[in-house]
């Protein structure tokens, strides 16, 4: 779908069909979908970090990050945690069911400016979804980046998403550090909260950019941790979440001061966060 099409009537979704459903955790499912119009699917272009609105007709719409990379175009992927009405309805859907998609929406990670640098990803729970888009884009252009370190944590081993891909990430030269909040039988990776593991690993801020996403409380402590390690605000990126309806900067509920998370975000630099009015 071109941006021009979305501009004609930005409320009109494209029809799409669910091709594959992956049960990531007891509460999170990943949907791989294809736009029904082959021309729209072929023309669909987006940047890592951009989001889309998924509709279940008769229930409503919600915003999710497109978490397949622009470099892999067979399907568009969305990971959905069962939390409210729309996500519960999405979890009821089967392969072959129709959904509506309004995408791409929002801004993206400054991918081009990250080239030639080391990268640190710090993710927690479902917060790994937007990071995966960027991580896979980097893996598919591995030579453009230096060290890629990923610190990814969840409550328990069963709550980690994308477990089936960890080997492939490591094989692509990603330094993957996994952690869970509490030890469990058979777990051979780290135990401890993400900010603690970050402090222990202490990846050097020199020529590195840090990208973090997770529960608000985790982001808060990770930002403080990065500061302590010597990261500047403009080396740090995170994504924000808000309740959204229109997704196009009109309906008035996702604003933080004059900043609309749906069109000005969801990606914000540490510098942008600091300039914002404190209404998180």
């Amino acid at each position, binding site marked *: 779908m071109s941006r021009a099409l*979305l*501009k*004609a*009537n*930005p*409320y*009109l*979704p494209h*029809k799409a069909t669910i091709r594959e459903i992956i049960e990531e955790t007891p509460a999170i499912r990943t949907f791989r979908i294809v736009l029904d119009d082959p021309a729209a699917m072929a023309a669909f272009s987006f940047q890592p970090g951009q989001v889309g609105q998924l*509709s279940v*007709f*008769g*229930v*409503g*719409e919600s915003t999710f990050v497109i978490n397949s990379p622009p470099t892999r175009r067979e399907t568009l992927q969305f990971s959905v945690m069962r*939390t*409210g*009405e729309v*996500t519960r309805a999405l979890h009821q859907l*089967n*392969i*072959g*069911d*129709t959904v*509506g998609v309004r995408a791409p929406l929002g801004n993206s990670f400054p991918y081009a400016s990250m080239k030639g640098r080391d990268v640190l990803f710090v993710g927690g729970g479902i917060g790994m979804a937007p990071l995966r888009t960027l991580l896979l884009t980097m893996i598919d252009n591995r030579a453009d980046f230096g060290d890629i370190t990923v610190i990814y944590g969840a409550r328990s081993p069963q709550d980690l998403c994308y477990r089936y891909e960890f080997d492939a990430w490591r094989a692509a030269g990603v330094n993957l550090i996994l952690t869970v909040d509490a030890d469990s039988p058979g777990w051979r990776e780290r135990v401890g909260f993400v900010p603690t593991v970050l402090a222990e690993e202490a990846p050097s801020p020199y020529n590195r950019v840090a990208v973090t996403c997770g529960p*608000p409380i985790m982001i808060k402590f990770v930002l403080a941790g990065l500061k302590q390690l010597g990261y500047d605000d403009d080396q740090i990126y995170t994504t924000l*979440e*808000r*309740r959204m*309806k*229109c997704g*196009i*900067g*009109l*309906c*008035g*509920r*996702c*604003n*933080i*001061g*004059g900043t609309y998370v749906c*069109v000005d975000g969801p990606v914000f630099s540490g510098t942008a966060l600091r300039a914002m*009015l*404190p*209404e*998180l």
Partner: protein
Amino acid sequence: MKRTCFLSHEDLLSWLARLAEKATVWVPDPDPAHPQVVSYKPFTPGSRPDFRRLPSLSAKGVLYPQGEVLLRFQKDKDPSAPSGYRLSFEDVLPVDCAVLFGCPPCDARGFLVFDEAFLQGPYADPYYRERRERAVVVSRVCRTWDAACFCHAVGSHPADEEGSDVQMIPVTEGHIFRAVTAKGERFLEGVGVQPTLAQHQEAQAALEQGRAQRLEDAALVSPSDDFRKRFSDAAFWRLWTERCLSCGLCTFVCPTCYCFTITDESDGIHGERLRSWDACMFHHFTQEASGHNPRPSKAERYRNRVGHKFSYFPEKHGRIACCGCGRCIRSCPVSMDIRAIVRALSQTEDAHV
């Protein structure tokens, strides 16, 4: 030279009747049982519009209905489809033409806020655009104001033509109509008669009088810095919003409040995606599925209302999102006064501590 014409009271009614054959003509119409209660209603041959009183609701519903259908969808059984059904949907863009006739200048100016938000942002709203492009706004020079009016404080006055296509000026035997925009010029083609010199002078005097009228002296035009400084002053917002009921009436009657919600309604086979007015005064407006709410109490919610109108919107669009009609003050069941709160932003004394 701007086109002007004169219409007597009787000719005005027959012109309205002719207009109503081609478009929906919204006029301020008094309630037969309670003539002091005026609201915008489509003109019908028996209508007797009231061009003096301020309608209790703003005119925003003419171009931005309280509820409207964005999309219609339908599920049809289809055994050949893998899911067993085929889903189809289409958007429903408005096709009606509207004339907003005889609104006060504040209501016409309210649409300038909508124009900025809905037409000048990163995405244009096609539903509003369709209605706006086809609509003609005829505002009247206002001659009846009360203690809640404060258009002057937000840079306007009772003879303001901003946002109107045609201005309607009361003179002794009827009204003078004066084109403001090119659309207004076309609208007045072949209407009425040339005003006499005396009528012309009377109209000029009415305009001068309106322009000179000062409703509320102290300006509310640049409180953005004061707002930012006050933002984190929790005690200030608690004090000023203590009696607020979070009923949302202020946003409902407001000519510039444009926030909305989108909901689906369906019987399982047919359905509609609807857009309805919503209000930042409501708790669930920003309530997230996780339980988190970035504006958990009425203090944060009212702060957002003040901030949106007097800080965020002017910073982005260069105009205050308030036209000074005073409806929020008149309608509030607990007499909240947004003017007092905006003025208090800059008070250096922390009277609330």
